[in-house]
């Protein structure tokens, strides 16, 4: 048995007349890992997940899921996958347990409904109607409908989109728990902190292609620096050429009203920056530093912020 849960090569998906959702996307997900597809809205994440689940036809490329293809083993494959799709609304009038019984009935070999309910921490809502659930609880129900399949591979499409911070953390705990039990999970997100926190490996997707791949740590290390310094001055910004020679600075990027330095050693770079500004008689209006994140990786690669989309 192959150790790959998912392998796809050269995926292309066009939406006529002129949208290219996927432009030759390659992906390999290993068994037992939690893999994140990270990218802005519209990058092609949902299209990828839908093609991998046999819900959307591709225009070109090859897909293997759990060593099978949709063309040959479609029906058998569905028995082995679990999914929480983006923007599914479960029937308002049903109770949580009724929804789970419904989804459980589709699978020959599934898991105990109450166990799935416990895994997503929803036992106390067992007999509540779907309308009475909060956004986070509804999303946890979506994950539970995936878990009743006892799936070998779990797809979670934007599992925390639109949730408040507390509900997001609740869902993170559930996903971390699944990961620690060795389940293969493919999740998509446009939240970098989510990908960093949950995923063993991450593929950054933009304009229908994978533009970076690795563990979150590797990707951040790929920046060659671990910190980011952002500053703005009241008038007359120093040039990129002035800033590049400063000690510890690896990269400089001019933004609309600020400068962004990627640095290895904050304690050397910041005093040197202050010295430079003093010599030029410039006054700081803003200064911030943070540990480099996947957001910075994305910015470095595309020149855009993840949230800009």
């Amino acid at each position: 048995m192959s150790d790959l849960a998912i392998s796809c090569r050269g995926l292309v998906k066009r939406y006529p007349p002129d949208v290219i959702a996927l432009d030759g996307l390659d992906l390999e997900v290993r068994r037992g890992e939690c893999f994140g597809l990270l990218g802005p809205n519209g990058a092609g994440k949902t299209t990828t997940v839908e093609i991998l689940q046999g819900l959307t036809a591709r225009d070109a490329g090859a897909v293997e899921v759990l060593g099978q293809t949709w063309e040959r083993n479609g029906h058998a494959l569905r028995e082995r996958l679990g999914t929480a799709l983006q923007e599914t609304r479960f029937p308002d009038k049903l109770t949580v347990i009724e929804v789970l019984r419904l989804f459980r009935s589709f699978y020959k070999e599934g898991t105990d409904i109450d166990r799935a309910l416990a895994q997503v921490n929803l036992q106390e809502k067992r007999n509540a109607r779907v309308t009475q659930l909060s956004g986070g609880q509804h999303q946890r129900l979506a994950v539970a409908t995936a878990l009743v399949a006892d799936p070998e591979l779990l797809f979670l499409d934007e599992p925390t989109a639109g949730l408040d911070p507390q509900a997001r953390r609740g869902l993170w705990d559930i996903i971390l728990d699944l990961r620690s039990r060795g389940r293969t999970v493919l999740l998509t997100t446009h939240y970098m902190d989510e990908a960093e926190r949950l995923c063993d490996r991450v593929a950054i997707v933009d304009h229908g292609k994978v533009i970076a791949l690795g563990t979150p740590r590797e990707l951040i290390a790929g920046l060659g620096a671990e910190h980011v310094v952002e500053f703005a001055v009241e008038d007359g910004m120093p040039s990129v050429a002035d800033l590049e020679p400063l000690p510890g600075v690896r990269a400089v990027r001019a933004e609309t009203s600020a400068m962004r330095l990627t640095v290895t050693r904050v304690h050397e770079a910041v005093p040197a920056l202050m010295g430079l500004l003093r010599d030029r008689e410039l006054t700081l209006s803003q200064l911030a530093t943070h540990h480099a994140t996947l957001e910075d990786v994305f910015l470095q690669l595309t020149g855009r912020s993840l949230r800009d989309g």
Partner: protein
Amino acid sequence: MAERHGGPLVQLTLWRVRELLREPEAVFWVFAFPVLLALALGLAFKNRGPQAITVGVVEGTADWVEVERVLGEADGIRAEALSAGEGARRLRTGRIALLVTPGEPITFTFDETREESGLARMLVNNALQEAGGRHDVREVREVRVTEKGSRYIDFLIPGLLGLNIMGTGLWGIGFGLVRTRKNGLLKRLLASPMPKSQLLLSQILARLVFLVLEVAAVVLFGIFVFGVPFRGGLIAFLAVVFIGATAFSGLGLLVAARARTIEGVSGLMNLVMVPMWIFSGVFFAWANFPDAMHLYIQMLPLTALNDALRAVMLDGTGLGGILGWLGILAAWGVASFAVALRLFRWS
């Protein structure tokens, strides 16, 4: 196996049944509405005793008082003394059937295209000729009957039943499916190993669960409140109802096969239903339409359903006599189910 709770078809059907039961509006439209409609129409068209026809007598003319007295005593006529102008106005607006201007000769003013005016002319003429001394030469004996089954309410109840079976089939299935599609649930179901045809089949099964109750409500109401006859066999009746409901469930699937919005599917439903409300003999017999249209009208599923229901309920026709109508209904059901399955959009 216990964990599967009866399998997907049972669970899918339960889903739809629960959704309907937990929606008070749906319960009203399915059960209360047809009964209220039958009650209202039944009262409006209840057979009343023969009504007196109102005629006008022009005041101030020669012996108008005598003419008004004679007409006032005659059966079936109500006479009102009016000025010439008022009489002409009431005749024009249809409030009187005929205007009598006494004199020599007596003048009758009326519109010959109005049925009751023709009747008024005859009654008024008879009353005045008899008062003037005419003798009838043959003796006549009258026997008056009211036959159950020939009244308007008897015609109406099977029509309302057919209308209800059509409406709940299209609405119940159409709206439910489109809402499910709009909520992204159809796509979510497609991602599971659920057999696709079972989803569509479960919609029909859920309909049949309610069908028994809604049909019983209308039929029992007709029988006990208006004394509508039920002359046919139960098996023939159930066959008509089930095959009819299945045909309209198939049409419901078809109109909902691609629509993404409730507005879209509502338009399609009206497109399907409104012509049948008019042509299929719900409120009046389709034979009133020109002969050239009869063949087309008879091919409509609601026409077949209504005709079959009337044949069984009013004429007591057995299963053998309604096979043609059942064939039309079954053909609609099978064809629309097959086309719906092909056209069906999951997202």
